[in-house]
């Protein structure tokens, strides 16, 4: 079965959500790919994990205002969250603010949103940044919206576990403060990953390919799961998954 790049990324993320420690996945604004991945896993596992799309309708369970998702994370009730960045460096520091010298940056982006808190509180943060380039993956971010690691005297139950890009999946080792290449997208190479990454990463001797989307999962995405994500992202459901609202 053929598949699109987004469908590939959805199934790649979904495989990271299938462990038993994942009971509640929260997905922030403008994140249809992670949202679809979470809904796919919920469908596959018959209702677990819970999936909360903060800007969803039927999938938005929050009724205590904007602070509730942060409170819930602080309570340990959210197991997975997704973050990205304008720049990401080898210690998993995220920059969502801008490039150049702060505060009068060369190019200003929206801002840090809740990253400086969710990165500390959610045990399994998955970094999702499709564009894999030296523009994004820099030696050192120009502004740390949220740091990848913390000193031992800072309470930090959460942090980065994986990064998913168009080229590969990396795991993050908090102890060593380094990413390790875990698998490479079919048709791409380890060299390509290294060429496009502006920081050092660990590369094991054998790097497997990221599996292609399973046919049964593609079928779910293009039917019931597509309908569910269409509740929040109708254009995405229509254009990417071929499911009309």
């Amino acid at each position, binding site marked *: 079965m053929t598949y699109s790049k987004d469908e590939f990324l959805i199934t790649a993320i979904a495989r990271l959500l299938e462990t038993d420690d994942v009971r509640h996945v929260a997905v922030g604004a403008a994140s249809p790919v992670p949202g679809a991945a979470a809904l796919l896993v919920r469908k596959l596992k018959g209702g677990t994990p819970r999936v909360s799309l903060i800007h969803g309708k039927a999938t938005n369970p929050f009724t205590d*205002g904007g602070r509730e998702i942060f409170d819930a994370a602080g309570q340990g009730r959210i197991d997975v969250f997704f973050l990205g960045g304008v720049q990401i460096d080898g210690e998993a520091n995220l920059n969502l603010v801008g490039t150049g010298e702060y*505060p009068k940056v060369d190019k200003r982006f929206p801002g840090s949103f809740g990253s400086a808190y969710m990165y500390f509180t959610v045990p399994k943060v998955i970094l999702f940044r499709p564009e894999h380039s030296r523009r994004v993956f820099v030696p050192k971010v120009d502004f740390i919206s949220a740091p990848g690691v913390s000193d031992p005297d*800072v309470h930090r139950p959460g942090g980065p576990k994986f990064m998913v890009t168009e080229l590969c999946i990396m795991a993050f080792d908090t102890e060593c403060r380094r990413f390790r290449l875990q698998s490479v997208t079919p048709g791409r190479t380890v060299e390509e990953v290294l060429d496009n990454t502006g920081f050092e990463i660990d590369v094991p001797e054998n790097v497997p390919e990221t599996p292609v989307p399973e046919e049964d999962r593609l079928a779910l995405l293009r039917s019931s799961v597509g309908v569910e994500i269409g509740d929040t992202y109708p254009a995405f459901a229509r254009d990417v998954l071929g499911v009309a609202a």
Partner: protein
Amino acid sequence: MITYLDHIDDLASEVPDGALLALPPEYSFVPMALVRAIIRRGVKDLHVLTVPINGLAADMLIGAGCVRKIECAAVSLGEAGLAPRFSAAVEAGTVEVLDSTCPAVHTALQATEKGVPFMPLGGLIGSDILNNRDDWKVVDDPLEQGNGRIVLIPAIQPDVAIIHSPLADRDGNVWIGRRRELATIAHASKTLLVTAERIQDESLLESEATAAGTLPGFYVSAVAPAVHGAKPLGLVEVYPPDTDEIISYAREARTEEGFHAYLQRNVFTAREAAE
């Protein structure tokens, strides 16, 4: 007691130059008609606080020259892309930006709501947000229980907050539904200006069902009607966002000329639906 005004332009006159103005987030009852009235009035030197993020309203106020300083966790047009006037003003250094993060904005307002000078918040340490905030303070575990360092966020009290609601009543009670950040904003602000799609005679506190989603009138300073008062943004269960309009704003506002043409057409020339 609460003032009922006939027109949003009268509400806009309650926003003085230099005010610390709190704006609700994009998905939460943003009073766009009132924002346009504020721009028409030519308010200056606002210190805008987005709670915790905002998009169109903040971008237009900045573009129109009403804003001296903005404290925000993010300003973004969402799926329509970057907020063009915000980005341009920050890059040009014509607006001062105080970067924050969503829960820190909520925390600062919760502190005011609670009448305390600060509230603690986890996370943040090691972030350049914190490193650029002289007003935030890192302290060693004050209970000495091995909890580690923690950040204290000082209380913020907005001078004026503005919200739009589907429904208010004649006692100043305002339906906010599950958008409870609006309650926190209201509790924390000195003045609360409300626009409403509809103002009914029957009290929203009459039944427990409606009371559950109601902000009581004693937090409300003034109310004015504004049919379609959130457009082109959406108002849940009342009207969806006008996505085409927002995308066309995002495109036009990329240049200063385009933005001013947009303003001329949509703010200065157009008549609001309520009129």
